[in-house]
């Protein structure tokens, strides 16, 4: 269970205060929708550790996350783009998921199979299509298998068909691996197809719809 208890944050130069308070079970997905700039991505930054909240707690199954540096938080984060290192191969990109230097090729093969990119190991990240890149990024989260999955506009750069396929893939993986999933998106279809609870930001406060 992931609990976000009364997290408050305001940017240095702004007056707007953002408040978040909700909880999430394993395998559950929430989608936070709204126009840009209302504080959706801010929440992700806070959970990931890139920003420090002014007050409140983040608790995952009794562990307080606030004291952990971003490198050590049990999260995987996926952005709209820039998730991969363009000049590396797919295999090398996935290899970064392992903490040791040794790459487990078998696990990589399985992960790629799970995202529908079997045999893509030696391909260059630069040469992949948008959808393929996101899939590789997803494969990496598979390999890391962290309990929390944060997605920041993950499908915005994809065309309609690919986005639809990706949503299905994410839905299945989340169900299979029981990740606490938070998706930030301005697209209505995401909430629907991911079978997720829908939240919006109203005046800086996260509210369920």
């Amino acid at each position: 269970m992931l609990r976000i208890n009364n997290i408050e944050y305001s940017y240095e130069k702004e007056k707007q205060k953002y408040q978040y308070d909700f909880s999430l079970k394993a395998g559950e997905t929430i989608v936070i929708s709204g126009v840009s700039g209302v504080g959706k991505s801010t929440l992700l930054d806070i959970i990931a550790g890139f920003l420090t909240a002014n007050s409140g707690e983040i608790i995952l199954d009794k562990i307080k996350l606030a004291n952990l540096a971003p490198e050590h938080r049990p999260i995987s984060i996926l952005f709209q783009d820039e998730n991969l290192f363009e000049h590396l191969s797919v295999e090398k990109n996935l290899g970064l998921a392992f903490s040791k230097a040794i790459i487990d090729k078998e696990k990589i093969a399985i992960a790629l199979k799970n995202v529908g990119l079997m045999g893509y190991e030696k391909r260059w990240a630069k040469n992949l299509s948008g959808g393929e890149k996101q899939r590789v990024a997803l494969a990496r989260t598979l390999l890391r298998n962290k309990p929390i999955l944060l997605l920041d506009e993950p499908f915005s750069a994809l065309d309609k068909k690919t986005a639809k396929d990706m949503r299905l893939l994410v839905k299945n993986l989340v169900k299979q691996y029981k990740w606490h999933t938070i998706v930030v998106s301005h697209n209505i279809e995401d909430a629907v197809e991911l079978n997720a609870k829908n939240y919006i930001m109203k005046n800086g406060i996260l509210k369920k719809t």
Partner: protein
Amino acid sequence: MLLTKGIIASQKRKIIMLIIALSISAFMTLLFFSIINVGNIFASNTAVIKIDILQLILMSLMQASLTTILSLSAGIAIAWALNRLEFFGKNLVVSLFATAIVAPAMVVAFGLISVWGRAGWIAQLLEFFGLSWNFSIFGLGGILFAHTILNGAFAAHILLARVDAIPARKLKSAQSLALTPFKRFILLDWAAISGALPALGSIIFLLAFTSFPIVLMLGGGVANQTLEVAIYSAVRLSFDLDLAVKLSVIQLVLCMIIIFPAIISNSNLANAGVNYSYKWQQKGLAQFTQIIILVLAVFAFALPLLAILIDGIAGGILDTLSRPSFWQASFTSISIGSLSAILTLILAVLIATGRAAFSNGILKAILGLPVFAYLVIPAVVLSLGFYLLSNKLDIATSTSAPFVLIIANSLLALPFAIAILAPAIETINYRYDKLSRSLNLSSLMRWRIVEWPLIGREIGIVLALAFCFSLGDLGIISLFGTNEFTTLPYAMYQSLGVYRSNDAAVIAAFMLILCLMVFWFLPVIFRKISNAKN
């Protein structure tokens, strides 16, 4: 194809650029020819001192290569440190490194001696602790040291912009993947800077290869001459003009070969628009190393500049400032510098916009060559060529002096001006070319509406750069200076010649302050002006 205004604009620009490129090349050939023709007269009279050309070339190549390697390494390390650390006064430090390229080399050489010489600050400090300072600043070691400080700072400034431009999302991805500092450097930083290294390396190589005041002052004598110094000797001392031309052509060809790949590779040295909304600082050993690197770098770079300022202030400013000759030299230097800067800007804009109109990469590179050739022509050869041309055209040198100074200094600053302006204009072109053409903008309209508002800062930098180059020139004025027509470097030299080293110190400090001020304020002012018109 309908000849719309938009298309005509593009053609016009191409033609203007072609004309300029051709004129510049023709001009250079003309200068060389004047020199060769005169050379014959002096065959019997003057000293023909043999020099080993091959050894000279090898020496220059070795020095330049070492400088390039050291400078790039230093630059990478400093950029790395600056990107990670945040501290009060960081902007000041970054601007300081930016000035590396404009500080007059002669002045910096003196500053280096003041700090690192046998009787310098470091030596005195060590003596206080009972240690002795055995490093000789004269010799190959001294040259490399000086070059690395200057070029390393320059490299750091350029590379920092690239590293700072890494998108925030990439940083966050990498951070949550818990990349080690080493992995982070390889995957993020290196990918960002490696694109700039060929061009940056070529420029540093050329600067070191043709380095003059530093090699002259710190070379320690004759063993460490570069081709440039030998050319200077051939022209001014032994008067072996044939040799001078021969060596100049060799230098030209060698350097063109070296810089050609860099021009073609189209690597971009421009500021990619720094937009860092996220800072991923490191802790522990990595941060400690960064701090050490930064402290050493600031130390090494700022100290000589500080030495010049202090020597100048201690040298009895009031005395020097009260002399009318000082103000006359200042007036001349500032006027010539300003006019030279304006000419450089105009030429650079015409060339950059013209080049951008060409879509063929190879054609672009070839057209860029004549300009870059001036990076390589020794100032003394340029000056001699102008002098002889002036004679041939029956113009008294005292009349032609200001014009020669303005034109020659512009030509010498042009390569840098283009290196700064071209990437910005290419980017604008890439974005707005089709739009401008479809809106049927004439060349001038396009300049006023599209280009001018967006490159205010770059224009300021170009003006400042050209001004500072002109300010520090000693090569061209040496043949054209008279009692009525002196510039600050000339006055500085004169002071040294009459035992008045204090005066020289004050002039040096004044030049440095002038350059720093111009370099800090012009870009800001021009950005405001060009944006205000928007």
